[in-house]
C-alpha cells in the first residue's frame, strides 16, 4: 500500500496526463458523423504510431556491437515508420476524395 501511494505521488503528473487524455479522447470524437469513421480510424491508427519514438530511443541507446539488439531495434523503427507514414498517407488519400466533390 505504502509503495503504491508513493508511486502515485512520484508519478502524479503522468497519471494526470492519462486520466485527462482518456476523457479528451472520448470527448474529441464524440460527435463524429459515420461518414468519417473510416478516415478517423485510419488517422488514429497513424497517431498511435508515436510508439516509434520509443523505438528510436531504444535503438539510440544500444551499444555499438550489440547486433541482436540493433537488429531488433532496427526492425522496430522500420515497423513504427510504416505505421506512421503509411497511416498518414492513406488517411490523406481517403480525405482527398471527400474534398474533390465540391
Amino acid at each position, binding site marked *: 500500500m505504502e509503495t503504491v501511494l508513493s508511486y502515485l505521488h512520484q508519478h502524479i503528473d503522468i497519471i494526470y496526463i492519462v486520466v485527462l487524455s482518456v476523457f479528451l479522447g472520448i470527448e474529441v470524437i464524440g460527435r463524429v458523423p459515420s461518414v*468519417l469513421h473510416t478516415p478517423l480510424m485510419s488517422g488514429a491508427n*497513424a497517431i498511435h504510431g508515436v510508439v516509434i519514438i520509443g523505438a528510436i530511443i531504444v535503438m539510440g541507446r544500444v551499444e555499438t556491437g550489440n547486433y541482436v539488439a540493433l537488429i531488433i531495434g532496427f526492425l522496430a523503427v522500420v515497423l513504427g515508420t510504416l505505421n506512421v507514414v503509411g497511416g498518414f498517407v492513406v488517411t490523406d488519400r481517403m480525405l482527398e476524395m471527400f474534398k474533390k466533390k465540391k
Partner: protein
Amino acid sequence: MEINLLTLCYLIGSVTFIIGLKMLSHPESARKGNLVAAAGMGISIFGTIFLYEENGEKLHNYGWIFAALVIGTIVGTLAAKRVKMTSMPELVSLFNGMGGACAALISVIEFKHITAAAHTDAATPYATYLSIFAGLVIGSISFAGSMIAWGKLNGRVKDFSFKGQQVFNMVLFAGIILLSAYLIFGLTPENQFLFYLVLLGALVYGVLFVLPIGGADMPVVISLLNSFTGVAAACAGFLYNNQVMLTGGILVGAAGTLLTILMCKAMNRSLLNVLIGSFGGGATGTQQAVTGNYKEISLSDAAVCMSYAHKVMIVPGYGLAVAQAQHVCHELEKLLEEKGVEVSYAIHPVAGRMPGHMNVLLAEADVNYDKLMEMEQANDEFKSTDVVLILGANDVVNPAAKTDPASPIYGMPILEVEQAKTVIVNKRSMKPGYAGIENALFFQPKTSMLFGDAKAALQKLVAEIKSL
C-alpha cells in the same frame, strides 16, 4: 537547453494530436487535421532523434536509425499510394499490426537491457516491469490479431473455431496475466526465459482471439485492436516517461474504444456479443427456412422501370466495391438525373467493410456529398421511392434482422427497402452474403433480380437507358 527544447517539441506534438483528432471528426477540416497531426508527429520524431539525451549523452547509431526511417517511409508510402480503395480496411489493419509489433519489440529490448544490467544497478521498480510486460502483451496481441484480421479481410485466412475455444482463450489469457505477474514480482536470472513464453502466449492469444470472429464483425475488431495498440504505445510512454507517447497512445486508446462501441451500436450488438458470439462462422439455432421463387428482370425492363420513376434510391454494398463499379454507378446517377429522376444513395453504417467505407468509395467516384443519405434518413425516404436499386448489398437489407429472432443478424438495424414500390437487386448469384444467411427479400413479389457483375450490369444498364 536542448533537452528543454525537446520537451517543447513533445508539447507541440501532444497538442497537434488533440487538434488533429478533433479536426478529423468534421468533414470540412478532416484533411487539414490529418496534416496537423502528421506535422506534430514529424516534430516529435526529429526532436527525439536530434535532441534526446540521457545522463548528458546523446543517442547513437544514427546510421541505423535513418536507414530504418528511410526504408519504412518508402515502403509505407508506396503501400499507401498503391492500395485500391476497396482494400483500405486490410491496409489499416496491417499498419496497426506494425505499430503493435513495434511496441512489443521495444519491450523485448528493454527487458534484455534491464536484465543484463540487473547485477550492477539498483533494483528496477516494479512499475517499469509492469510497463514492459503490459507493452509486450498488448502489443503482441494487437500484432497477431491484426495480421489475422488482415488475412481474413483479403480472404487468405478462413474462419476457424474449435470446441471449447472460448474457454481455452480465457484460460490462456489468465495464464498470460498470472505468468506476467509472477515474473514482475519474482524475476530471477533463472526464470528470465519465461518472458519469451509470455510473448509466445500473447501471440497465440491474438491469433485465437480474432480467428473465430466472422467477417462482418471485422471492422469492430480492427477498431478494437487499434485502441489496443494505442494503449501499448502508452505503456512504452510510461517506460520512458515520455509525454507525447502517453498522450498519443491514451488518446487513441480512448477514442478507439469509443469508436468501437459506436460501431457495435450501428449493428445493434454489444461488444461482448461480437467478441464471444462467433458471428457468421456457423450460426446456430434454427433459422426460418427461406425458400420460394425469385424472378429475374431483363436489362431493358430495368432501364425502363428506372427511367420513368420519380425517385430512385441506390443501395450500394461491398459487391459494388469489389466490382470497382462506383464510377459507372455515378454515371447512371447523372443519366437518370438528366431524365428528371431524383436519385440518392442510401448508406448503411456498416456498408462495405468498415463504417464509412462506402462513403469513401463513392466520394472517389465524385458522387455529390448531399446525395448520400444515412440509414435513418433513408428509411424515411423509402416509402416515397419508386425503385430501389441494390448493388451488391445483402445483409444490410435482410428483413430477417427485424423478423427472425433466430437469425444471427437479428436486431441489426437495416435499410427497410421493402417499403419502396419496386426493388431491383443486382447480385452475381443467389449465394448468401457475408454473414452467410439467406435473404427473404429476394423472394418477395416486388423484388426482381438482375444477375451479373455490378460493373458489367451497370454499364449495360447505362447503355440501355441512353438508347431509350
